[in-house]
């Protein structure tokens, strides 16, 4: 099959609503209408009936339901109710899933260090936040390049999960071969502290299953009422995988100067892993969209040369790898991407979605409009501090420029947490009021 046929097949799968128990025929019809609207906007073959509106909400459902972020992360039933309330009340064309409300108890069991969250360094009504540090040291590139999975399990896990610190003592699993060359590698599994770590793993696994059950039930309920999930899978740019969670911003920036060859090698090694992650998660969900939050490639972070060499080269490979599997990379370009537009338009037509934040949308439409569906840009400052009328005026203008001739999804620029509900309502209504293509 060609990638076009594969993509068509993935869209068909999504559109079929296979496994969804629709509450009635109208819900089923709405579901198909919404998916078709998004599909048409993405593929650039046909102008959709109207501009799809898929707000990128983060913790908004908690604030809207009047519960704290802490409640959201610890009381799964409350979280489920909040998610449903938001979607049923405001009726977006697609919703962001409950993966954005990760289970607090799970991270407690593992004594997670990479983030702080309510009750663990953050107030109850505030978002979970990443704690950047060098979880991989500058001199550990060789170990990562040689065996990334081994590095993750025996070096990275012990550093980001306090409960898994004993994993440092594990032997490389690839040492296991033939009868006389096997038993030695298992000795660490006999250590009490390693066994305690495995108990934490089992407990965390149980919690993850419990949480996933609730998430699945919420998806079922929302989709059963005719609301598709906006994204199926997730992956990241290799540069961000390394920069966000392993080396940190500071570390990876210095590596570009001090050890560029090793950095490039590591990025290459991570590329197929990033593709695998996106493919397996999107295929399991039966939804072609692969969410990819982009961080360190934004305007101002890297020079043009650095962006092309260190960021885009491997990101493009991941994007192409996903496209070859019939998937649709959904790239969330936070910050500005004005200086990157000419570079990123080197992609096949109708295969990606670019969600922009501060990027000039007229320019994005001009440069990227024939290649990709663009989305986003309603400023979070406006949504937080402006009036509903101001939001509508902004959206109306945006639809005029960026929505011209299709290929556009109305959406906010940065993740929506605590904004006045009437402003989000105004954003959603704008698509229905100003976004009908005749």
């Amino acid at each position, binding site marked *: 099959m060609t990638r076009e046929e594969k993509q068509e097949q993935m869209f068909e799968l999504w559109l079929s609503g296979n496994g969804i128990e629709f509450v009635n025929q109208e819900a089923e019809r709405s579901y198909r209408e919404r998916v078709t609207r998004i599909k048409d906007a993405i593929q650039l073959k046909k102008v959709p009936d109207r501009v799809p509106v898929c707000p990128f909400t983060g913790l908004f459902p908690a604030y809207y339901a009047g519960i704290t972020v802490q409640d959201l992360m610890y009381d799964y039933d409350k979280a489920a109710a909040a998610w449903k309330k938001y979607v049923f009340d405001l009726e977006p064309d697609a919703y962001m899933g409950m993966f954005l409300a990760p289970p607090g108890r799970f991270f407690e069991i593992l004594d997670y260090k990479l983030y702080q969250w309510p009750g663990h360094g953050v107030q109850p009504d505030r978002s979970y936040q990443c704690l950047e540090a060098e979880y991989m040291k500058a001199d550990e590139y060789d170990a990562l390049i040689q065996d990334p999975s081994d590095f993750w399990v025996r070096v990275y896990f012990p550093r980001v999960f306090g409960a898994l610190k004993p994993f440092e003592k594990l032997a490389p699993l690839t040492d296991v071969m033939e009868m006389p060359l096997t038993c030695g590698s298992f000795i660490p599994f006999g250590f009490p502290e390693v066994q305690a770590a495995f108990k934490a793993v089992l407990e965390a696994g149980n919690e993850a299953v419990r949480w996933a059950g609730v998430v699945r039930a919420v998806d079922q309920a929302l989709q059963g009422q005719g609301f598709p999930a906006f994204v199926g899978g997730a992956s990241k740019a290799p540069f961000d995988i390394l920069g966000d969670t392993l080396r940190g911003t500071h570390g990876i920036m*210095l590596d570009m*100067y001090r050890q560029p060859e090793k950095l490039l090698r590591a990025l290459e090694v991570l590329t197929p892993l990033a593709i695998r992650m996106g493919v397996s998660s999107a295929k399991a969900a039966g939804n072609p969209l692969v969410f990819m939050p982009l961080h360190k490639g934004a305007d*101002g972070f*890297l*020079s043009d040369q650095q962006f092309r060499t260190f960021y885009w080269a491997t990101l493009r490979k991941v994007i192409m790898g996903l496209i070859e599997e019939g998937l649709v990379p959904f790239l969330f370009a936070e910050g500005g991407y004005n200086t990157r537009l000419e570079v990123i338009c080197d992609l096949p037509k109708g295969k990606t979605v670019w969600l922009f934040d501060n990027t000039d949308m007229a320019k994005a439409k001009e440069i990227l409009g024939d290649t990709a569906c663009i989305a986003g840009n309603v400023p979070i*400052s406006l949504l937080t*501090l402006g009036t509903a009328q101001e939001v509508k005026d902004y959206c109306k203008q945006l639809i005029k420029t960026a929505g011209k001739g299709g290929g556009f999804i109305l959406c906010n620029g940065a993740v929506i947490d*605590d904004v006045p509900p009437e402003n989000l309502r105004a954003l959603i209504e704008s698509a229905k009021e100003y976004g009908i293509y005749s």
Partner: protein
Amino acid sequence: MEKEKMTELARALMELDEKRVYQLVDEKIKNGISPLDIIAECNEGMAGVGDLFSAGQYFLSQMLFAAEIFKNIMKQLEPIMPKAEASTSRDKVVIGTVKGDIHDIGKNIVVNLLRGSGFEVIDLGVDVPAEKFVEALRETGARVLGLSALLNFTYPEMKTVVEAVTEAGLRDKVTIIIGGAPCNEQVRQFTGADYYAEDAVAGVNICKKVYS
């Protein structure tokens, strides 16, 4: 400053020639050049880095690398610094990430750049409550307060800090600058701050203006 007029050390720092910078600093120390003179040259180099950033030729990556090199030089010079100089009354800036937000990459860049420009920076860290900002302003007499944020949750908190400075009777003595990804002119108006800094260099330039 024009590149040709810069000293070799300043230029090497501006051009991020790390090895050459360390080599030159070592030579200068060996030749008995005073640490303060060495720092002055480095400040010039850091100013050059800031200029290149403003001109759109340097980016965050170069800023971070320059700051890293500068920090290493300061570490090397610290033990041989004349003690009295440590407490001279330089131009002071109080800075921190506001309460509820624990991000500090942006703030740290500003801090390094300010130090590289010769400011004394009182860095209060992250998740800083309003009263701590006020206390630091009182204690140090700093005339500039920088508020950093990454999350848009922080708009009301930045406003709270501005109000606390007003209540403390310091508002007319202190210039308040906000900065960070979610900030813009609309946010500045909402918070009541004096300036919104688009980037680190813009922030440093505002500090220079206040103290000029």
